[in-house]
């Protein structure tokens, strides 16, 4: 049993080790052969290998000591564009030794930057493009401003297919000596929805908790990891229990640090999957949009989300009345 997170232990080191995403890997390999990399945008959902691809590219480009030639920044962590600009300035001041003439800057969660920050980033990218190339990583490329997009080679990552994930699970179970049942594998695939990070986290947790990884164990682990999930919160509200729903909301934001905008996005996704009349789905979507807009304008997350939960309570009540 390994003593690190498996997401790291089994993170591919070279482009050759990456499973799936063949087309992307082929393009990246051509960059390595040419010893030249344009600015890139890696866009796609979480756990699909964006950061991994960037690190593997760097490895293949610079060799074992690639860490000396790259810099990883996370736009959500670094406070403001000024920090990023200063870091880039120092980092890009010197040329690397060897036949690659530039350093690589990997900027994760770039879609969390404001438009103003992105404008500043664009200027920085232009200014230092001799000595530094940028790989911007984002969930939604649409949130990257047009002038940056037009200067970058786009790469679109997609969720991994179930077979690729099953293969990865089996490979790791073999290496780690983990007993896993077929339904266990299916359960993990089902719950992780094509997100490889989530897949490995669930697998590692289940494997360290029980002897054999079964579907039951997998569901128990995931249930514990997400004690109050958003769907459950919505169902509680629809059933008329506002106070419990609000407590679940508090748990999500306080204990699990979920941001209001994340919750909103997920609620919106769930609304259309709920078993309620379509007219109500539209009505709720309208209010969800309103709440999202208010949050952007600086309203209080919990108060606004509670108002939304109260709307769900009302929706549940009206539906019951209509059914009678």
């Amino acid at each position: 049993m390994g003593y690190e997170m498996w997401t790291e232990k089994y993170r591919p080191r070279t482009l050759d080790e990456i499973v799936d995403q063949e087309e992307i890997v082929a393009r990246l390999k051509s960059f390595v052969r040419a010893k030249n990399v344009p600015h890139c945008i890696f866009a796609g959902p979480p756990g699909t290998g964006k950061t991994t691809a960037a690190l593997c590219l760097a490895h293949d480009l610079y060799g074992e000591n690639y860490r000396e030639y790259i810099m990883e920044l996370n736009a959500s962590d670094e406070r403001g564009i000024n920090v990023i600009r200063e870091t880039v300035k120092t980092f890009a001041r010197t040329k690397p030794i060897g036949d690659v003439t530039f350093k690589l800057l990997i900027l994760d969660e770039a879609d969390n930057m404001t438009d103003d920050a992105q404008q500043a980033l664009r200027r920085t990218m232009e200014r230092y493009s001799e000595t530094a190339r940028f790989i911007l990583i984002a969930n939604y490329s649409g949130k990257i401003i047009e002038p940056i997009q037009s200067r970058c080679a786009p790469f679109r990552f997609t969720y991994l297919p179930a077979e690729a994930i099953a293969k990865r699970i089996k490979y790791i179970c073999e290496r780690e000596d983990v007993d896993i049942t077929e339904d266990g594998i299916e359960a993990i695939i089902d719950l992780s929805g094509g997100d490889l990070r989530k897949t490995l986290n669930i697998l590692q947790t289940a494997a360290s908790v029980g002897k054999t990884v079964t579907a039951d164990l997998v569901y128990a682990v995931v249930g514990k990891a997400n004690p109050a999930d958003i769907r459950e919160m919505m169902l509680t509200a629809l059933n008329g229990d506002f106070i419990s729903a609000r407590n679940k909301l508090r748990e999500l934001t306080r204990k699990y640090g979920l941001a209001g905008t994340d919750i909103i996005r997920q609620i919106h996704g769930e609304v259309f999957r709920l078993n309620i009349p379509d007219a109500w789905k539209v009505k709720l979507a309208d209010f969800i949009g309103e709440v999202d807009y208010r949050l952007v304008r600086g309203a209080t997350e919990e108060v606004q989300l509670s108002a939304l939960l109260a709307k769900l309570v009302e929706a549940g009540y009206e539906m019951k009345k209509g059914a009678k």
Partner: protein
Amino acid sequence: MSSSPYIPWTLKYKPRSLSEIIGNEEAKKKILEWMNSWKKGIPEKRALFIYGPPGVGKTATVEALANDLNMELVMTDASTYRTEENVRRFAGRASQYGSLFGRGKIIVFDEVDGITGSADTGGLAAIIDVIKNTRVPVILIANDAYDPRFAPLRNLCLLVEFKRLSVTEVARHLARICAREGIVADEKALRFIAERSSGDIRSAILDLQALAQGRSRLTYEDVSWLAARDRKEEIFNVLRMIFYAKSASSAKSAVNMADVDVDMLFEWIYENIPYHIKNPPELAAAMDALAKADIYRGALKETGDWSFLRYIIDLMTAGVAFSWSRKASGWVPFKFPERIKIASATKEEREMLEEIGKRIGKKCHLSSSRAIVEVLPYLRIILQNNPKVGKRIARWLNLTDEMVSYILSMSG
């Protein structure tokens, strides 16, 4: 330490002259100009309408002004406005003749907000009458000049707004009082009291007296507990006035009785809505009113423009009250706001969580916030169920023992 203990400091340190009034320079200038215009005959606007939040010195300004100009104040309050007859008796004669002793007179209607409902329209009409015909200066004082009922008054009056005082202004005044009382006070302690007052100098002075009287030194520790102070009974009455209000204006006036600032009162209302308002459409409407008040709260914070406060108050009091039938279903106790309890209890926890997220994120190529959501829950389960492995992983992630015990304390 000087002074007999029983005089409220609001009285003891009441400004005697306009120059002693803190802040609101513009308003004071406007008032003085208007008073001076009376020397040249009856001005176009015979009345002044001073409005602004409680405790910013509206009445004190008028009193100080009369003192400076050596004029007699003919003053009355809400109790007089009930009937037309009362108003005439009070102001009718006074507004037509000078004072017996040759001093000039100022007629003051304080707490004009106190006029309630249609029963008082006679009183309001009588006030309008007095203003139209007065030969001496008339001053009206209220919290909110833009109440629709006052529309006919506004045209007749010169409007003067009093704004909330800044924390610095309030703190500076508190420091002056401490100096006079021989109290050595930390600046931080005074700023804390000032901040809590949200620009209401009267409540700030009363708080200071409660905390500092009899001491020779006032530290931050002496005052910080104030935040947790829980004047339950008082706040309960205020909440009852709001939730079960008979009229919109009585719901609104509850704010003035609250011993807590508007933000805190908002939290109390937010916490307690679902325990009192159970009918789903009514609950949704009440929460909606509160959520709208919250939008204006955001606007106020962003712009610093306190005029948004009136909408905040309208929506969080009258807006909530008139979202529902206001029929009590048995005795329902009020609950302390959870948001306040948790927010203050867990500032350290949040910092700890943030640092854990950062360390995990560093190893796993994630931002702190995503590490907290995507990795930490699994690490927690491993730590709880397989401590040996969990602790090794934690070490690999560079988490301290303290962080590990914190993670273990998070319930699942």
